[in-house]
């Protein structure tokens, strides 16, 4: 069995076109209030380049390729870890003034009443 991927010419262009369209539509719906975490979140997503860096480094045949591969993985890993750290930190800060556990409290009150009955 062979699961190698071969993407050439138009097949690749179709992937690019659909991905760009999906990105445009998905991001277009994000409210302005979330633009910073969105940017750092999409920043994190392009950190997938670390996978390409790993491929390059593992296939390195001489010191030059090893150096470049090491550099690529180092930067890619920084992109991933840093992007995730700042995005999750920022997103955790966004809260509404409606008390968050209201939904839970309501649920508890209802089950309490049910027990009484």
């Amino acid at each position, binding site marked *: 069995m*062979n*699961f190698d991927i*071969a*993407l*050439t010419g138009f097949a690749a262009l179709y*992937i*690019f076109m659909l*991905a*760009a369209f*999906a*990105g*445009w539509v*998905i991001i277009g719906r994000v409210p*302005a*209030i*979330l*633009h*910073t*975490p*969105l*940017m*750092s*979140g999409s*920043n*994190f*997503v*392009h950190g*997938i*380049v*670390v*996978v*390409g860096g*790993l*491929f*390059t480094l*593992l*296939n390195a045949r001489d010191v030059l390729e090893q150096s470049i*591969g*090491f*550099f*690529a*993985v*180092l*930067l*890619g*890993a*920084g*992109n*991933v*870890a840093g*992007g*995730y*750290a*700042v995005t*999750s*930190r920022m*997103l955790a800060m*966004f*809260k509404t*003034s409606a008390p968050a556990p209201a939904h839970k409290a309501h649920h508890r009150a209802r089950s309490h009443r049910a027990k009484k009955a």
Partner: protein
Amino acid sequence: MITLTWLPSLVIGLADICAAFLFMYGLQRMSSPATATSGIRVAGIGMIAAVLASFLYVFSVDPAAKPLLPVNIGLALTALAIGGGLAWLAGRRVAMTAMPQMVAIYNGMGGGAAGGIAAAELFGARAHGATVLVVTLLGGLIGAVSFSGSSIAWAKLQGVINKPLRFKGQQVVNALIMAAAVCVAGVIIYGGGASATLLWVPSTWICIFFAFALLFGIAMTLPIGGADMPVVISIYNAFTGLAVGLEGFVLQNPALMIAGMVVGAAGLLLTLLMAQAMNRSVSNVVFTNFGEAAKSKPGAIKGEEKPVQAADAAIKMRYAASVIIIPGYGLAAAQAQQKLYEFVKLLQAAGVVVRFAIHPVAGRMPGQMDVLLAEAGVPYDMIFQLDDINDDFATTDVAMVIGANDVVNPAARTDKSSPIFGMPILNADKAKQVYVIKRGQGKGYAGIVNALFYGDNCNMVYGDAKAVLSAMIEGVKGLGAAAA
């Protein structure tokens, strides 16, 4: 005997397709503050799957790389640990006010990694066929520009570089650098078949190519001023995404292609939104030395700036029915977001309806003010964007501007000769009373006199935002004590 040589590529393929799906699903969940936290977690799972699976590449390495495999695995783990560890610590510790430069540097890292992949493909002469070679070079060019450009953007935002570097004929020089990079790329493409000669030493040309690409990123970013940074950061976000997508094609990895293009489109959309919020085209932001051209006519505006004490302004707000606060970069520079919300809570306790109005390009990156307010604990339902709140100023008692200038300049509405004419602004001038907290007399980033400051309904509160807000808090508290 059953051989399972196909198993690694099956696992890699499945992991990558999961990653691509989870990235898009994660980003989609980020479209609401309520689900956004789970969105980044979902994308994180995809990333872990893809990175773990990529170690299965060891089963199908280049035969020439086999003897080096143990060393390469060690190098890979080291690079992951060092790069990931340092960036994680930095990301956990950085102050929220420093977020723009942090995003810039992570972005540059992604671009650098994409450029590195291109370099390895070129130096190793792995890219076969004209199409693949062109795509490799294009991805390398964009990645390298994003790497050096983001680094300069970081240095500017961090304050390492303080002034935009501008000189006559800058655009021509930049264009020549770009043209040189493209020409060298042409040499690499056409020289690819020939064996090494005096003029054709592939590695030399590849080095020259990357040197020009890196130089262009630096030259392009140096002249751009601080307030245009939201556009610049968005552009480099798009560039890195594009570079990653292109190198994904070179490596035949659809996960990279999809993730890169999604981010590229996202960055492009944000770039256009930011430029639109300044009523300027993207090329105008990048290629025009804004601010220098803006020569304001002194004396064109009648009246004078009327200073007022912080405590007096605070007491006026305490007895107002409604207050709208307009934060700008000055709030971030003074790190005054906590003090601001402390003051706002005092007003709310006194029954004042307080809301925040955010201009799309306030701060140094898209949405920076929203993040600062969220950090201070301001619930996001108190925060309103330009279109949602602009009509309410006319019925508002007090508008308080903190460290913002051009985004509230009514000249953008009325003065056709103004460089910012046509830019959508927050209509602070329509409020019954306006207070402007400002470090001192002076012009905004665009170098334009702000007619708002001279209006009959406007008073200036001079000083550092943090100190002024502390004085305001004292003012309101003192009032309560006196009453009791």
